[in-house]
């Protein structure tokens, strides 16, 4: 058999097309009739078709060679402008930073090259980036590390070239040298001088923190990254969401953020005054004004917005190590801080920007007077200013921030259904999934030691542990059906929370069977397994099966537990959701209202189950397209949640997202966009940078843009949502999302859909 020349192939090709579309039997007949007409052709075709049959066994060309491309980090020696990269200094969400040496031979100079992890869409954005960079470049001051250049590498990566500073953070420097209070204040005045100079050029730092204030070996202070937060934010103004691609949420450091930064207010020079106040407080007391009890970003944000800092002198306790680092006794340090320094710090740290020092220079003047023992400009106030005033003035912002606090602790109980689409429906599962991940992580630790692959550096995934445990469980516990029922329930729930529905289904089913064989068929836990099994079917979209199971279960529970039992009501709520998904909206609404009433009676109007049911009812109303009613209910749910759960609950972010969708459906696009942007701001400051809630909010913004026919913006936002990391469920249905239908037919949209699917597949593979 020889190779195929072009002519022969072209002659055979149409016959192959025909043959490949046939079943084996058809093909045999077809070949037989062909053989009668043209035996040579038939023989050739037959040989090729036989060869084709063997291909499948060989897996011929089934495994592509080239996924993925792996890029080595060896940038050392590459040049950027006139600089040659020497070694990496640091890496963060914002990008990587390299030590570089000037390479044009004219003079020796070191610099830091910062590659910025932002997407510059198009030439105009690049121009602006360079132009802003050159404005910052004109800012020169002995205590400011200058921006030498800003540009785009030949490979399209935006970079900044900064004066290289070999130093340590100011707080570390002060402690290492055991500087006393006076020396610290003097050093701090150099910082103020630098900031005042920048303010004179109308440049606000926005991100003053110890790691941006370095002190060199010779004792010289150098401020880093002046105006860079703004430089990057400017990009965001022009193409609002571009800033999002900075993965860290990077431009802002919450520990040193001013209240107006946290609440999305206007950033001015007063913002720097506040951050400088925090820095001075830290230098003098060794502690952050929000105290040491701050454990989560939510606590911190709460502290920034509404907790007045204790006076610096008050937090120096007997046995304070801070005093020792300041070369004094605690009692003496307390005396040094009380009086003028307390007053000065109080003035700088005012929640209301207008009540702070009017300028950095005024701040510096008071410190100068303090050092000279002159009377300072500020009268000690009574610290009676609590948050009332601030809250009054910034009500919306505070409420929004409150909502964001809620985002942090996701104590989710019961079944919470989000809204119209499956996208929101799946939130429940995903929310619990984080917790399941943590538990499984713990389990991983337990299993780790015995795993031989651990020694070669392979990590065991949570999933593997679960898989191993779920196979072991059957053999290990076969003699104890009761325990088997319990354990398979636990494992089934773990899979459910990980979104691995088919395994969850198998284990819950096993649990029910084990319980039955143990004679425990109708106890509460078994009924719970049955509820969860039916719920798994809902999450898989198998509504008809779920409906029939839930009907039976509801009947059993009503008889055994009574119609007002908590579990019965829970099943009824699940059932309402199923009906709503199947389009039986009137019945769904009726049941959901009964559930809500019963919960209001039994648990009270402010219980989390009750609020969750309000949200579920709103979701049904959305399906009924009764938007004003849904809107009213959802807003009520948000309001109660805010009041009772305190400001810490992830559900609220989801309620807010639903609320924005309702607004969208009501055609209030401006309103919807506004609240989404505020929500996004808060999410980005408070959640993990790649948390799927953030991606979903960006996605919702894309929906608004698409509805307005702003195609380019919608596409850019979708791309960001994909980069941030949509949930697989959201990513997979993007192509069919009716809210994006104005984008259909745009090849760029098709590309994004493909990218989203690819990411989703990669995520699943992990």
């Amino acid at each position: 058999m020889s190779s195929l020349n072009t002519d022969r192939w072209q002659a055979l090709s149409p016959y192959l097309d025909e043959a490949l579309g046939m079943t084996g039997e058809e093909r045999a007949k077809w070949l037989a009739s062909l053989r009668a007409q043209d035996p040579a052709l038939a023989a050739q075709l037959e040989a090729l078709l036989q060869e084709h049959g063997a291909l499948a066994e060989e897996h011929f060309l089934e495994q592509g060679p080239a996924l993925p491309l792996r890029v080595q980090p060896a940038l050392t020696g590459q040049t950027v402008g006139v600089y040659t990269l020497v070694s990496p200094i640091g890496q963060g969400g914002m990008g990587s930073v390299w030590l570089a040496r000037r390479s044009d031979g004219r003079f020796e100079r070191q610099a830091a090259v910062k590659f910025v992890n932002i997407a510059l869409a198009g030439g105009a954005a690049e121009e602006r980036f360079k132009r802003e960079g050159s404005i910052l470049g004109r800012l020169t001051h002995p205590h400011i590390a200058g921006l030498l250049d800003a540009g785009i590498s030949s490979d399209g990566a935006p970079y900044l070239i900064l004066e290289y500073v070999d130093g340590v953070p100011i707080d570390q420097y002060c402690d290492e040298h055991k500087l006393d209070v006076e020396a610290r204040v003097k050093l701090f005045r150099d910082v103020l001088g630098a900031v005042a100079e920048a303010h004179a050029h109308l440049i606000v730092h926005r991100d003053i923190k110890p790691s941006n204030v370095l002190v060199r070996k010779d004792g010289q202070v150098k401020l880093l990254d002046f105006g860079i937060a703004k430089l990057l934010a400017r990009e965001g103004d022009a193409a609002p969401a571009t800033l999002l691609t900075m993965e860290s949420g990077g431009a802002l450091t919450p520990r040193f953020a001013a209240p107006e930064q946290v609440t999305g207010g206007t950033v001015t020079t007063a913002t720097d005054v506040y951050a400088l106040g925090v820095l001075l407080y830290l230098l003098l007391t060794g502690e952050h004004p929000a105290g040491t009890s701050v454990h989560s970003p939510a606590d911190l944000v709460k502290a920034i917005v509404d907790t007045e800092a204790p006076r610096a002198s008050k937090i120096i306790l007997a046995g304070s190590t801070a005093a020792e680092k300041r070369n004094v006794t605690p009692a003496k340090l307390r005396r040094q801080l009380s009086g003028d320094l307390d007053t000065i710090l109080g003035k700088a740290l005012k929640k209301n920007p207008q009540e702070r020092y009017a300028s950095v220079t005024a701040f510096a003047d008071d410190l100068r007077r303090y050092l000279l023992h002159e009377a300072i400009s500020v009268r000690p106030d009574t610290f009676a200013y609590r948050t009332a005033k601030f809250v009054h003035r910034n009500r919306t912002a505070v409420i929004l921030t409150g909502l964001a606090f809620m985002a942090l602790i996701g104590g989710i109980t019961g079944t919470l259904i989000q809204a119209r689409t499956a996208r929101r429906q799946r939130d429940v599962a995903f929310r619990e999934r984080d917790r399941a991940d943590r538990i499984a992580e713990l389990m991983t630790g337990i299993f780790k030691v015995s795993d031989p692959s651990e020694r070669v550096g392979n990590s065991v995934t949570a999933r593997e542990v679960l898989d191993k445990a779920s196979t072991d469980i059957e053999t290990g516990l076969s003699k104890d059906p009761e325990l088997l029922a319990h354990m398979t329930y636990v494992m089934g729930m773990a899979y459910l929370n990980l979104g691995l529905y088919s395994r969850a289904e198998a284990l819950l089913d096993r649990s029910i069977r084990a319980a039955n064989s143990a004679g425990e068929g109708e106890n509460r836990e078994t009924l719970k397994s049955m509820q969860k099994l039916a719920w798994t079917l809902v999450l898989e979209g198998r509504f008809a099966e779920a409906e029939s199971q839930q009907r039976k279960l509801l009947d059993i529970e009503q008889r055994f537990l009574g119609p007002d039992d908590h579990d019965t009501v829970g099943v009824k709520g699940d059932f309402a959701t199923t009906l709503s998904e199947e389009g039986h909206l009137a019945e769904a609404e009726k049941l959901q209202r009964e559930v809500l009433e019963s919960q209001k009676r039994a648990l009270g109007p402010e219980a989390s189950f009750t609020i969750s049911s309000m949200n579920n009812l709103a979701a049904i109303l959305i399906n009924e397209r009764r938007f004003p009613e849904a809107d009213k209910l959802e807003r009520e749910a948000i309001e109660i949640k805010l009041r009772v759960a305190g400001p810490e609950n992830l559900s609220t972010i989801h309620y807010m997202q639903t609320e924005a969708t309702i607004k969208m459906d009501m055609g209030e696009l401006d309103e919807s966009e506004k609240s989404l942007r505020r929500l996004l701001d808060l999410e980005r400051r408070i959640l993990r940078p790649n948390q799927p809630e953030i991606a979903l909010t960006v996605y919702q913004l894309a929906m608004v843009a698409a509805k307005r026919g702003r195609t380019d913006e919608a596409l850019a936002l979708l791309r960001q949502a994909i980069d941030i990391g949509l949930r697989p469920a959201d990513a997979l249905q993007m192509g069919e999302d009716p809210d994006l239908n104005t984008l259909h037919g745009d090849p760029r949209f098709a590309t994004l859909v493909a990218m989203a699917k690819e990411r989703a597949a990669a995520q699943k593979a992990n």
Partner: protein
Amino acid sequence: MRDADSTIVSLMEGAERGDSSAADALFAALYAELHRLAKRELWRQGAVVSISATTLLHEAYLDISARGGPSFPDRGRFMGYAARVMRGLIIDHARSRNAIKRGGQFEITRLGTESADQVADERELTRISEAVEQLAKADPSLAEVVDLRFFCGFSFAEIAAMQGVSERTVQRKWEKARIYLHRSLRVAGSL
């Protein structure tokens, strides 16, 4: 680089008219573009990054179409060319795999594994590539499917969407291409 971008449209048109120098220039421009995009990821992340060939092609399309404006050719045509270029890029990097690691060096591994012995054999890839070139003369649309599917990892559904044909059609093309390639590799490899 910007000049090359703006001429990609006209180079594609030239290549389609059979202008071989336009085809060469198009290849070079796309090669540079893909290389640039892969490297851009490297600059940004400053660490080892994995990007798949498909992602790279998606990025290339979005970038070039953003610059090319409304006259930019459709995605199917673009991907057809770009996938061929990608094959070249993959083989070149397979070749230089053992060379001294310079900055921006790519390393090509199979999906889902880091193990070096599973790295596609460069000679094998070269032979496949030569057979694909031969196929491109006999039936260019089959060769394109091989580039998209085998070298770039697109699914049948994605290829079908790109080319505006049914998934069955793509599958049939793929099977025919496999028959052709198997035959020529078997002969060439004197099995």
